[in-house]
């Protein structure tokens, strides 16, 4: 009995995981082998998904069906004229599927292909045309991007330092929170002001306060980073304990006869 692809996938995944973890003991060839395999698969995956999910359906197929194929039928329509159903079919396809404007898509494609001139010492300046175009897009789009993302942040930065409850009285919690946010923000901004003389404007203590408050925020970032990294390890350990170990049991049963008890 041959093992299923799912079983093989789980077994390979576990072996690869342990190979990667062997690096913790010492760098070794087993680790390097699987690291290289991963890079190969990841790059192949990128190429396949770009081709199958974009280039093929959105660019090549329309170019072929509405461009070349339609043109071929159009040019040969005369040969099939008066040939009954075949002639009508060719004429119908030629009329329906030939869009000359489809060829215009070759212009951005050829422009994008200028990237490949980067490998030529003589013509690599042409690659800079495409790169420059991309940078230009980023520059032009930066305005809209900035205002869309940061304008609400700027508005939110202005907040009342005394908040009143709807039934009357001061909402102390919210007022204190707004005060803390405003002071944190201003003191952090003052800390990063290097073009003025802080001593002259008595801003040194504010800048120091900003520095300490930043440490609190960076501590929050650090604590969150620890949480994130642990989650990756947890998933791998769960995989090894719950799936990989059981996959070996299934493999044993498969070769001992009787099929995998866990149905992988």
């Amino acid at each position, binding site marked *: 009995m041959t093992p299923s692809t799912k079983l093989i996938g789980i077994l390979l995944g576990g072996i690869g995981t342990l190979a990667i973890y062997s690096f*913790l*003991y010492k760098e070794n060839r087993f680790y390097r082998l699987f690291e290289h395999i991963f890079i190969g698969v990841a790059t192949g*995956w*990128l190429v396949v*998904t*770009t081709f199958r*999910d*974009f280039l093929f*359906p*959105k660019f090549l197929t329309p170019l072929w069906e509405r461009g070349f194929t339609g043109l071929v039928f159009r040019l040969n329509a005369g040969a099939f004229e008066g040939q009954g159903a075949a002639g009508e079919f060719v004429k119908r396809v030629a009329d329906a599927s030939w869009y000359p404007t489809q060829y215009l898509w070759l212009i951005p494609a050829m422009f994008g292909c200028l990237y490949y001139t980067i490998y030529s010492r003589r013509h690599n300046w042409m690659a800079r045309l495409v790169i420059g175009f991309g940078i230009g897009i980023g520059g032009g*789009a930066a305005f*809209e*991007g900035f205002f*869309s*993302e940061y304008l*609400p*942040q700027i*508005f*939110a930065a202005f907040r009342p330092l005394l908040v009143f409850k709807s039934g009357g009285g001061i909402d102390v919690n919210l007022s204190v929170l707004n005060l803390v*946010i405003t002071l944190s923000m201003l003191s952090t901004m003052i800390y990063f002001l290097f073009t003025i003389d802080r001593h002259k404007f008595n801003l040194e203590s504010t800048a120091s306060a900003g520095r300490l408050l930043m440490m609190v*925020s960076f501590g*929050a*970032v650090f604590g*969150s*980073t*620890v*949480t*994130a990294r*642990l*989650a*990756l*390890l*947890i*998933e*791998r*350990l*769960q995989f090894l*304990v*719950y799936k990989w170990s059981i996959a070996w049991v299934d493999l044993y049963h498969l070769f001992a006869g009787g099929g995998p008890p866990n149905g992988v």
Partner: protein
Amino acid sequence: MTPDTPRRTVLDFIANLDRRFVYFLTAVVMLIPIVSKLEFRPPMMLQAEKLFNYVEDLAREPNKRVVMISLDWGPQTAPELRPATLAFLKHVMYRRIPVVVLTLLNDGRGFTEVVPPEAAKVVEDARRAEGVPANEIEVLYGRDWINLGYRFGFSDAIRGMAGNLIEYVRSDTKRKPLEEYEIMRNVKGADSFSLMVEVTGSVGIFPAWLQWFKQTRTMRFALGCTSISVPESYTYLDSGQLVGLFEGITGAAAYERLLSERLGLSPSRDTFQAMTTQMFGQGLIVLLVIVGNVAYFMLQRRKARESTT
């Protein structure tokens, strides 16, 4: 041992501990809850609860508008973001809110095909257990959810979809024109959606959605992020640019708890267990920080004493 050999104390042992022992200790401590299948109830997270309540409000709308979820994560961040994605999909599917699934990362392509059916199965099992009529149990592709797959181009894809999604995307992963699906009937651009949930561990993708898939009074954003991005995400919560947040696996576990307690959906035991294991891991780190610092200061004091004598 010669008379001149200094005695090794516990302090010396701790100070010279091999890093491989620390790695081994990490693995062992985190294997304890996994092997023993220990599970604690996750704490309630305010931001996850806010998102849950927002989706419940959307479910009460008479004409439920479509929500969109972008699975912009891959294997590297799947442990934290897959639970959040699964929890959200279970919720909207259970409440019969149509959902559009896509990804801007080629790494996430496979997950768009695997995670929604997993959520659908949980919802169908729950409906079966509740005795829902047979013709209302199934979560149907094309009516309840649709997979637009991998959209190449990051910001360009977001901009294209914001303008006219059907014209830009044209077909789903089954290569069928979007106009043929019931779910896409009233969908045009960003305005057509009631909620856009971005689930990502990558830097820069969520700001791109904010910048180009314009938020309106009726189209809001929510975010599922890895724990690293949580501190930064709070600024978007504060400014009102987000209605809710999945704070990594902690947020996902809290959302699963809400799904279980309020809707009766079976929670993902893997997520609850991951939270518990995380507790062990963080406890170990806290212990190591304390032990490391205590050992360091004691060694410093010993060195100072030895230098004065």
